[in-house]
């Protein structure tokens, strides 16, 4: 028994979950009114019915839905997400190209939110009525209430027109050749500042609040009293005994919310023209590029599932009680 078996069973469940997501989306996308071939025809400026029929055959759209689904699942199992109707490129390649940008944005935002948020929350829990606490309250209200895209636009206006110090669009300067040297990295980092700040604000607010209340909760528990009774210094009690316990809810939310962060990325990428998955998703939705939509949905679900598993792992690392069950 034990960890291996547990991991295997979790993996199977995760696969099942992703499979369900794929099937639902596939059915939904194909059951919806509207025909991808018409899109292609439209994008090419019109097309004869014969050509359209030919395209349908080519994309397998003339077959029954279950057959199409079967074919699709078969391909997915082989790591093939099909070809984009619009670009006629392998969806896998297109996603792969966009992933680094999105991961960069999302991870930097999440990490910033997590570390800064937790730190703020913990610090403020020492003085539950101090100014830091008040600040966090305000921050969390603003973070929750301001639409992320609006915040982004306002930042763009501010920084584009009023204080033009930070780039407001794209991931690299237009004439940059990429490449990955130090200069390129600095360039990307420079472009990353605004989107990351925007995207992380919501979560920063949330985590700091959560960390604070969870910290206060833990600080009121019996084992903290025990630690104090041992004569430990406040610092040790706070950072050694309380923090690890207080992190649990924060980590849980982190895992659960990863999907939301991805969604937020769609908006932020749109505002800041960040060449990531979110924009790809948005654009494929507008173009009814079904294979790409399905691919992105599949990919995001996989990411969320993986994140959840990682959270689970973290959880087991932080909380020994979990191993038992």
């Amino acid at each position, binding site marked *: 028994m034990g960890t291996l078996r547990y991991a295997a069973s979790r993996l199977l469940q995760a696969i099942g979950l992703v499979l369900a997501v794929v099937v639902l989306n596939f059915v939904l996308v194909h059951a919806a009114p509207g025909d991808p071939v018409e899109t292609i025809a439209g994008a090419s400026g019109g097309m004869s019915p014969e050509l359209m029929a030919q395209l349908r055959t080519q994309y397998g759209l003339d077959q029954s839905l279950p057959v199409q689904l079967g074919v699709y699942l078969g391909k997915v199992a082989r790591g093939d997400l099909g070809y984009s109707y619009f670009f006629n490129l392998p969806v896998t390649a297109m996603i792969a190209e966009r992933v680094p940008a999105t991961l960069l944005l999302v991870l930097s935002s999440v990490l910033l939110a997590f570390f800064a948020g937790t730190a703020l929350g913990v610090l403020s829990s020492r003085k539950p009525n101090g100014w830091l606490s008040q600040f966090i309250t305000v921050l969390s209200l603003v973070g929750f209430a301001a639409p992320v895209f609006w915040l982004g636009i306002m930042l763009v206006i501010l920084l584009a027109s009023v204080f033009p110090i930070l780039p407001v669009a794209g991931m690299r300067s237009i004439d940059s050749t990429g490449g990955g040297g130090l200069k390129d990295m600095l360039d990307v980092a420079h472009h990353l500042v605004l989107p990351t700040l925007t995207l992380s604000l919501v979560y920063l607010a949330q985590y700091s609040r959560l960390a604070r209340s969870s910290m206060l909760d833990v600080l*009121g*528990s*019996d*084992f903290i*009293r*025990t*630690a*104090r*009774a*041992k*004569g*430990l*210094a406040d610092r040790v009690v706070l950072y050694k*005994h309380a923090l*690890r*316990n207080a992190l649990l809810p924060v980590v849980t939310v982190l895992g659960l919310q990863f999907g939301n962060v991805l969604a937020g990325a769609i908006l932020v990428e749109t505002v800041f023209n960040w060449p990531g998955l979110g924009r790809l998703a948005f654009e494929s939705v507008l173009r009814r590029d079904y294979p790409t939509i399905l691919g992105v949905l599949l990919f995001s679900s996989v990411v969320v599932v993986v994140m959840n598993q990682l959270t689970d792992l973290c959880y087991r690392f*932080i*909380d*020994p*009680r979990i191993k*038992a069950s």
Partner: protein
Amino acid sequence: MASGNDNNNDALLRVQDLHVEFKTRRGQALVLNGVDFEIRAGETLCVVGESGCGKSMTALALLRLIPSPPGRIRNGCVLFQGEDLVQASDARMREVRGNRISMIFQEPMTSLNPVFTVGDQIGESLQLHAGMNAREARQRAIEMLRQVGIPAPERRVDEYPHQLSGGMRQRVMIAMALACRPDILIADEPTTALDVTVQAQIFDLLRDLQREKGTAIMLITHDMGAVAEMADRVMVMYAGRVIEQGTTEQVLSEPGHPYTRGLIDCLPELGSSAAREGDVREDLAEIAGVVPSIWELGTGCAFRERCPRAMERCAAEVPPMFAVTGEVAAGTPHGAACWLHAETLKTLEEREREAA
């Protein structure tokens, strides 16, 4: 280091006129209202009383662990070997905690940190107070676990609290509390959450350890049986005050306060059926009513509403501690805070016979 089990009268710890208040939305609540007592080296002092009477607060106040902001020690002093802990610096207080005076709590389930191994948690105090390194601390932790009767301590030392049963956790708590050989061990209802068979084990353990190390124990409980079994001296609390204290023998067999009397009488006693005729079941004696809330105390004796022998005077003035055996001073062998004694001090022996 305490000098052992000799019955010397020097107080190791003396508490004088301790007042603890809590700030609540309804105003200041005085949960300890002038508590005086002492703990002598090597003895076991039992504190009994109904729920909410301030037993835990008294214990926490000794270590200055009263949850604050809402609570604070308003006045009074806690003299530990002559040093007033109420005035001591935070750093000094940390030296005392877990080292000279340590404490174990009622809930073994929640009083251990779930994310550290028991070895770590025991070793922590050792590293802190005895200056041991991690390896030494671990060795010592294993030894402590063995001493408190945990089987296979080498294995258990690396386990987490949730892997242990309630009884074992309480033993771990005891091991942790005793690791630095404190002078005083405060045990706040250490067995309430445990089965009687396990409680018996814990009590045995405490007694054995006390015998070996001469640690003074302040045991909080509301089980009179436990008092009879464990205590050298007893202190009865009611609504934030000490209402009676004396040796176990004195308090249990000749209680000086009607409340103490009531507490003893309303206990169903084991072995009663042997004395009982047929199937006739006699009602137990009752103490009517409930403990008044802090807000309804008013003046006078807090017990007067429930007291079968209340007098006019009880409502007017708070009774001082009368020396049931004659002397009136702190640390008397047997004292009770009841006006009855003011009237009848001379005929005390008669009254006791009546009551019995």
